[in-house]
Structures are given as structure tokens and as C-alpha cells.
């Protein structure tokens, strides 16, 4: 009988059926086949792309996006012990946080989850993060991407402050900076000197993947 675990995993993710997805992934793990583990990771990545498209097209709502992200997280957690020996390559590190004075974190947390599932190592600094703290984390972790969330107009100036701190410390050229959140726009990205503005988590993680793809 053919093993349809991977198809079941994909259905689990796209039908928001956590139980089915986890049962499928346990079958894959029980098989002990490294190549299948790698394929399962690819299925998660491809399914999340479909999920993201559904959200961007207005077909899915935020809670569905969040839950698909949760299923992906649990699946990846189950697979991760097997991935160390030749599993999926890390795409690099993302340092992320919500700027000083701003406590909104739902959006940032979704980005964190999607970035992790896409293979990034994520350092989440939380909310109300000062420029000094962002810069120190960049120095410590040497990320490929810095992500900042900002939902309040009153805290928009913090973005420029972080980028200035990176410049002063000679760190700005070593990474890409992406910003997101209700108050922002592409113009804000240009004004503060970020590389990009992401209107949603899916677009943001897509950008990060492009940036980290080998040339």
C-alpha cells in the first residue's frame, strides 16, 4: 500500500486539522527515512505558501492564518530532532521586535512563527524594544534580517533611531531591514532607511526568503 503521509500532512495543514497533520508526521518519523523527513519539511513550506496566498487574497482570516502557523510550528517541532543530521538548512537568523513605546505584538508573533517554519533561526526581542537593545542583538547574533514591528504613528520615529544606531555601530550594511505594522507604509520604509515594508507576515517572510536565497 502506498504511504500517503505527505499528502495527509499537506491536507492537515490546509484543512486546519492539527491531529491529521501530527499523525502524518509521526508516520514519517517512524519510517526513520532521512529523505522523507526532508520532504515533510518541504511540504510544510509549500503548504504555508498556499496558506499565505489564501490570507492575502482575503479567502482566509487572521485566526486561520494563526492556526495554520501553529500546526506548522508543532509539525516542525516534531521533525526538528531528526533534522539536525542533514535536515533542512537554516536560512540564517532573523532578529525581530516591536519598537520602543509600542506593545502591540500579535502581528510580530505571526511573523516569528512563519519565519521559524520557513527555516529561519529567530531571535524574538519582544515588545517595547529600545534602539540599544536592537543594536546589541544584531551585534550578538549577526542576523541576515532585522524585522521591526510598529503599529503606532507616535513610535514611527523609533524605526529611524534603530537604523541610526546600526549605522553608527557599522552594522547597517551587514543585513536587510524590514518593517511592518498598521501605522507603516512603503513610504515609511523609504523615510527611515529600511530595505522594505511588508504589508503582512506572508509577504515579509517571502522577502526574507528571497534575500537569503543563494545568488
Amino acid at each position, binding site marked *: 500500500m502506498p504511504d500517503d503521509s505527505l499528502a495527509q500532512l499537506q491536507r492537515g495543514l490546509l484543512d486546519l486539522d492539527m491531529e491529521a497533520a501530527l499523525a502524518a508526521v509521526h508516520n514519517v518519523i517512524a519510517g526513520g527515512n532521512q529523505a522523507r523527513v526532508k520532504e515533510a519539511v518541504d511540504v510544510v513550506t509549500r503548504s504555508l505558501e498556499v496558506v499565505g496566498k489564501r490570507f492575502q487574497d482575503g479567502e482566509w482570516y487572521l485566526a486561520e492564518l*494563526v*492556526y495554520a502557523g501553529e500546526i506548522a510550528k508543532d509539525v516542525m517541532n516534531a521533525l526538528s530532532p531528526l533534522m539536525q543530521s542533514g535536515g533542512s538548512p537554516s536560512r540564517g537568523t532573523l532578529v525581530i521586535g516591536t519598537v520602543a513605546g509600542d506593545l502591540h505584538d500579535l502581528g510580530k508573533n505571526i511573523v516569528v512563527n512563519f519565519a521559524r517554519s520557513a527555516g529561519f533561526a529567530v531571535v524574538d526581542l519582544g515588545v517595547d524594544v529600545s534602539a540599544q537593545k536592537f543594536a546589541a542583538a544584531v551585534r550578538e547574533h549577526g542576523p541576515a534580517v532585522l524585522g521591526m514591528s510598529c503599529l503606532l504613528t507616535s513610535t514611527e520615529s523609533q524605526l529611524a533611531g534603530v537604523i541610526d544606531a546600526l549605522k553608527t555601530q557599522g552594522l547597517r550594511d551587514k543585513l536587510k531591514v524590514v518593517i511592518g505594522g498598521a501605522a507603516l507604509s512603503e513610504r515609511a520604509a523609504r523615510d527611515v532607511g529600511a530595505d522594505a515594508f511588508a504589508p503582512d507576515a506572508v509577504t515579509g517572510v517571502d522577502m526574507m526568503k528571497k534575500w537569503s536565497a543563494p545568488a
Partner: protein
Amino acid sequence: MNFKERVLTAMNHEEADRVPVMGLIMDPATVNKMLGKKPVDFVGLLQKPVLGNQIKNLLSSNRFWNNMYYGNFSAAMQAAASLGFDANWAVYALMKLTRDPQASVGWSWYDPYGRVWELAADTEGNINVNYSRALCDTEEKWEKWVEEKAPLFETMLRNTAAFHRKLVKDHGGRIYPMCYAAPGPFENSWQPIGFVNFTRLIYQKPDFVKKVIAFQTDLCLRNLEAVMKSGVEVVLGGDDLGQKTGPLLRPELVEKLYGESYRRMADLVHQRGRKFVFHSCGNIYALLDKFVEWGFDGIITMEPTAGMDLGRVRAQVGHKLVLIGNLDVSYLVVKGTRQEIEDAVRKAIGDAARGGGYILSTSHSHPLVDPVRLQWMVEAAHKYGRYPIGG
């Protein structure tokens, strides 16, 4: 016509002498600026070695909290009335000061529902409080919390009734207090649990979610009753159902989980002969028809930064809902020019005020809102808001 007649006429979808203007003034920063008052920097004082403890004891007492809280809203009403607003919103909240190693100042407010409110001060010392995290991230913690807090809910409801009654008594002669029974069953069910956890529970433990919603709906109905004891004819309720691009939950799911709660809220207010106005931030076009179906009389906010356009809302719901709000708080009343404010006021009135049913206001409160811009807004409303509009 006086302010009250003006507001109630608009609420009836009739043309008053002019479009009423409502303030959403409540942030201590805005209030203190308006009254030229110097704030007491409680957050700073809390961090002082010896004094800190005394301040902590003071802030933890129900009496002090109520006085401080009432003082802020009383000042907001006073300031709004002197600027010429016809109405201003008011909401009661109860918080307990709690030592909190996760908070930057070492202390947070915990509310009776199971939410942590981060305590901060701006550069002038104005106090700022904002929901930061959930205290009941599991089923067990939630059950334990609501059991333990049963007496606190009663205190909260008593305080709510007393707060609104006093506000109406002290200020109702000069300005119309739009008394707000917040938060609603949606926020009260997810915020003490956390959005991600709550989403997981919707799929994995639907019976538990039902129980939480039923509990919060009952509490919310009691909160509405408490607010209505003040005698006001219009009551606000609300939940942030939207984010920048659309509702947080699929509208069918909102109906399934919360439809009955919202119907019961509107029904209760109607049974008492009052009108029910609902607040929600975010992009909520997809829910407007539901609001009508649930029996809401009006909506307040219509956040422009989430794409809410007053003309489009009016076209979609006609005069089935009174509309309140829509002026931008991200730029317009923070840094906008007088001309920009006049243009925005004129446009809002042109888009929504014909035939009554519109009350001009900003789309939210915000600590950076500038009183001078609010004054311009009121003046523009007086200039362009005379009925008949554009005639």
C-alpha cells in the same frame, strides 16, 4: 437646541440644528495638556526605594484607584465641554497593582478579567496603561482565575455603576457622557488567554471556548446594566473585531461564537428603552450587515487607517446605523494643519450627515492628540455642520 437634544436627535436619524461633535478624550496626557495640569508621576514615584512602597499601597486601594480614575475622566469631561464638544465617551476599569518581574518598571496593573496592563509614563510623567499579556493561558488557569476573582467582579460592577452615575450627575448638565461598558465578550474571552492560545482552543476545545464566551457574555450584560443605572439614553459597548485588512475571525465564525452574545446585548439595552452603539477598530466592512442584524443602533470608530471610508459605510448600511467617528488620529488631529482639519470635517459631514444619523468624532483616543487640533475640529464642525448640509 442643547447638546443633549442634538445628540439624541442625531441618534434618531433626524437633522438637529447642527451635526453633534463627540470627543474620545481619555488619555491622561491629552487631558492634562488641555487643562494645563502637571501630572503626578506615579510610575517614577513607584521606583523610589521607600516612597515606592507607600505609593504601592496607595495605588492598590480601591478608594484611591477610583478617585484617581474618576478624576481623570471628570477632567476629560470638563475639558471636552469647554472645547465645545456635545458629548465625550467614558469608560470604567478596575486594576490592581501587582509586582511583576516581566514589566520594565517592576510593577503592572492586573485587571479582574486576567489581563496584564503595562504601566508606563511618558516624558512628562503622564501615566499610560496598555494591555500587554494574558494571565490565563490554560483551561485550568482560567477556571481557577474566575473562581478566585468572583468577589472582584462584584466590586468592579458596583464601581462601574457608581462611576457612571457620578459622572452623569457631575457633568451631564454641560456635556453628554457616552457611557461605555467595555470590553466586550470577544476581547474578554481572548485577551486573558492570549490570541494564539485562544485560536488553538477554538479548534481544539470548542466546548471550553463556549463556556468562556457564555461567562463573559453574562458579565458583559451585567456591566451594561451597571452602566445604564446612570440613566443615559445611549450606551456604548464594543470589541475590536477588525485589524488593518479585515476581521480577525471569519464573519461566519464571529456569528457562530458571538452572534448570540451581541444579540443579547442589543436586546437588553432595547428592553431598557436605550440605544446601543458598538465600537470596533480595524477594517470591518464584512461585519456591517451583521451589526444591523444583531440589532445595533450605531457604530463608533470607522478607522481610516484600516481603509474605513465613511461614504462607503453609509452606502452599505444606509440609515440602519448611526455612524460616529472616522477622523484620523494617526496624523490629522496630531499634526494636521487647520485647513486639513477643515477639509476632513467637511468631507465627513458631506459623506454621512445628511438626514441626521452622524456624530462627528475622531476614530480613537491617542495620547498624542493635540487639544488645539481638537478645537479646530469643533470649530470646523460648527462652521460646516449646520443643517441643511451643503444647502
